[in-house]
């Protein structure tokens, strides 16, 4: 046979989990850096601080830039409009009174110029100064009606001015300007402030990085230590929590929850593998011993044949356990949802009752049945059949002779319940949650044939249908109830939840017959 159709070994799961944890631990603890220079950048806290600094810096520069641009822009526009107004009114003077009037106006303006910021110069066509507070025509101003921003020599002091030239009809030229040394000073102040801010920001960024790094490290070191310990195989370690409720605390809690769940799963796997080991080892051992003994001791061919046949029977039992286990994991994986469709449980129940009735009859057990004419569910007919059959099988097996086994279905607005009730030994209250675990055998059932997988399979099937298996006390005996929702919600993907059994002490609906 070339077909590897065996279930995942627990060791595979364990090593898989280990590998995963190791990766997590390595990722968190930043393990084994190949190059120290890269390791610095690989530190999440440094990266975080750098990113923080970068964002902070860029926004500061943008802010300062926009302040500078708008402030200087307003000042420059104000200067231009002052020059334009001056020009307009001086030209007006010229038009109303010619050159003498213009010279008079210029004289007044120069005289009234309080802070010496206004610049006027009237020159004749040859470039000789007629009137003005500037010594000579600046070389840079060559064209009329354009704003120039140029350095000038303002009699004795050097400065920068914004200026505009106006050509007069008689060939004279008028220059109007404003000293903008103050604006330049403001520009320098703003630039310096920006550099200072940048410097302070870098300094604060470095300090922030160091602080963040230490906070990160303090919070992550414990997580790293814990995950490392777990990767080494010590599943009992948990991350220490500071109970502050901050992100790190929440992460620690999440990690602890995850570890708890992994530990539970591992326990489950271990339990199941122990159970498998026991439940499969026993019949295999028996078969092996029987064959070995027969090989050396059988006195006749008949004796040998009998031994071989019994050993074969024991191996068949092993196969049966195997198949039931595979079936359960197949169902738990949710692989069979593809076969879901509308199923009327009425004929299913009728057929099953008819199927088991002769069996019950051999033990003098009366099969009492009742269900509505239509019991519609969405599900897998084969699996629902098997689930109910398993319960009936159990009930008939454990019910005392000449008692009654009840098979019933009932529905309300939300759920459909299928009841199978017997008056047998039942399952003690304390064991009910465990009863759907694989290989659970009630005390009373130790010596009856069975795989110990029946209820686990029923619970798995109920879960697949978004329902559950409830085990109630039938006083005396067991009432197993498959509770199925009438309306299935979205059913996609495999079932992630572990199989759970709700061992409600009593049914919410009154059981039939009680």
């Amino acid at each position, binding site marked *: *046979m*070339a*077909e590897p*159709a065996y279930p995942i070994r627990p060791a595979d799961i364990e090593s898989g989990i280990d590998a995963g944890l190791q990766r997590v631990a390595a990722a968190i603890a930043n393990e084994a850096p190949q190059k120290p220079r890269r390791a610095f950048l690989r530190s999440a806290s440094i990266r975080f601080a750098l990113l923080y600094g970068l964002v902070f810096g860029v926004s500061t520069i943008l802010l300062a830039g926009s302040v500078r641009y708008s402030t200087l822009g307003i000042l420059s526009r104000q200067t231009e409009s002052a020059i334009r107004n001056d020009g307009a009114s001086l030209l007006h003077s010229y038009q109303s009174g010619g050159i003498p009037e213009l010279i008079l106006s210029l004289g007044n303006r120069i005289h009234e110029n309080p802070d010496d910021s206004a610049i006027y110069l009237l020159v004749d066509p040859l470039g000789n100064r007629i009137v003005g507070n500037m010594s000579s025509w600046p070389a840079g101003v060559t064209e009329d009606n354009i704003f120039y921003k140029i350095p000038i020599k303002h009699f004795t002091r050097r400065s920068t001015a914004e200026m505009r030239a106006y050509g007069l009809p008689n060939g004279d030229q008028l220059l109007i300007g404003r000293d903008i040394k103050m604006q330049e000073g403001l520009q320098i102040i703003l630039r310096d402030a920006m550099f200072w801010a940048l410097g302070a920001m870098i300094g604060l960024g470095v300090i922030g990085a160091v602080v963040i790094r230490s906070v990160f490290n303090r919070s992550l070191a414990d997580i790293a230590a814990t995950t490392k310990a777990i990767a080494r195989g010590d599943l009992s370690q948990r991350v220490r929590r500071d109970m502050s409720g901050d992100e790190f605390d929440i992460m620690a809690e999440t990690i602890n929850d995850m570890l708890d769940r992994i530990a539970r799963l591992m326990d489950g796997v271990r339990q199941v593998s122990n159970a498998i080991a026991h439940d499969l080892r026993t019949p295999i051992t028996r078969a092996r011993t029987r064959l070995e003994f027969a090989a050396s001791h059988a006195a006749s061919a008949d004796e040998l044949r009998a031994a071989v*046949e019994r050993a*074969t029977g024991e*191996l*068949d039992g092993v*196969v*049966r356990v195997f*198949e039931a286990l*595979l079936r359960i994991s*197949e169902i738990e994986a949710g*692989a*069979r949802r*593809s*076969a879901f469709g509308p199923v009327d449980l009425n004929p299913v129940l009728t*057929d099953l009752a*008819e*199927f*088991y009735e*002769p*069996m019950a*009859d*051999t033990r003098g057990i009366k099969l009492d049945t009742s269900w509505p004419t239509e019991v519609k569910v969405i599900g897998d007919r*084969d699996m629902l*059949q*098997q689930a109910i*059959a*398993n319960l009936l*099988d159990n009930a*008939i*097996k454990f019910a005392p002779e000449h008692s009654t086994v009840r098979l019933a279905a009932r529905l309300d607005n939300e759920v459909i319940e299928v009841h199978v009730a017997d008056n047998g030994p039942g399952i003690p209250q304390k064991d009910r949650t465990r009863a759907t675990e694989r290989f659970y055998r009630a005390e009373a059932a130790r010596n009856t*044939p*069975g*795989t110990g997988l*029946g209820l686990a399979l029923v619970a798995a099937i109920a879960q697949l249908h978004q329902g559950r298996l409830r085990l109630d006390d039938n006083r005396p005996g067991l009432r197993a109830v498959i509770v199925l929702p009438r309306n299935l919600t979205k059913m996609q993907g495999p079932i992630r939840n572990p199989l759970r059994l709700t061992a409600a002490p009593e049914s919410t609906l009154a059981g039939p017959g009680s």
Partner: protein
Amino acid sequence: MRILLVEDDKDVAGFVVKGLREAGHTVEHADNGRDGLFLAASENFDAIILDRMLPGGIDGLRLLETLRAQDNATPVLFLSALTQVDDRVKGLKAGGDDYLTKPFAFAELLARVEALARRGKGEGPSTRLVVGDLEMDLLSRGVKRAGQKIDLQPREFRLLEFLMRHAGQVVTRTMLLEGVWDYHFDPQTNVIDVHVSRLRQKIDKPFPTPLLHTVRNAGYMLRVEEP
């Protein structure tokens, strides 16, 4: 009957070939898909036993699909360690007639192959089944033995019908479960035996010679006892 076995495991193949030959069949064996396909396509067989996973590039499913594409309707029984329901459905969809999972009891394999091979022959629809002095009228749904009317429950009728259709062949409990009840699970108790023994009470008990025989380690067979 002429049976083709395509199975790569030497031990399993050896036992199956030997067992089938002892049961009086002619057996050809191929241990890979390519040879299996060649044999299946070039010769006539009454049934093919086909392993799902085979070496040689052509697995059981491919082999069967190729065969069916050539309008070859030879009944095929899949033999496989793939037990998942989906695998079974896939096998049957590809044109398989029956599916048996490993490990299997040889008696089960033999019974199923013989049932398949005979079904392939197909005697056409009949309205009356006869085994010895037992008669079943499928139209009036009446059963008589030695002229005496026997009252059967509907399910007993179907059980007897199944047995009579397979008269002279071993019918296993699983075959009954699937054929009569359409159940595909393993009831852990001997429910089938109880049903058969009830039927036996009605058709055999009042009469001198039994027709319904238990075949040890295999199942049941309805046949006329050789004198």
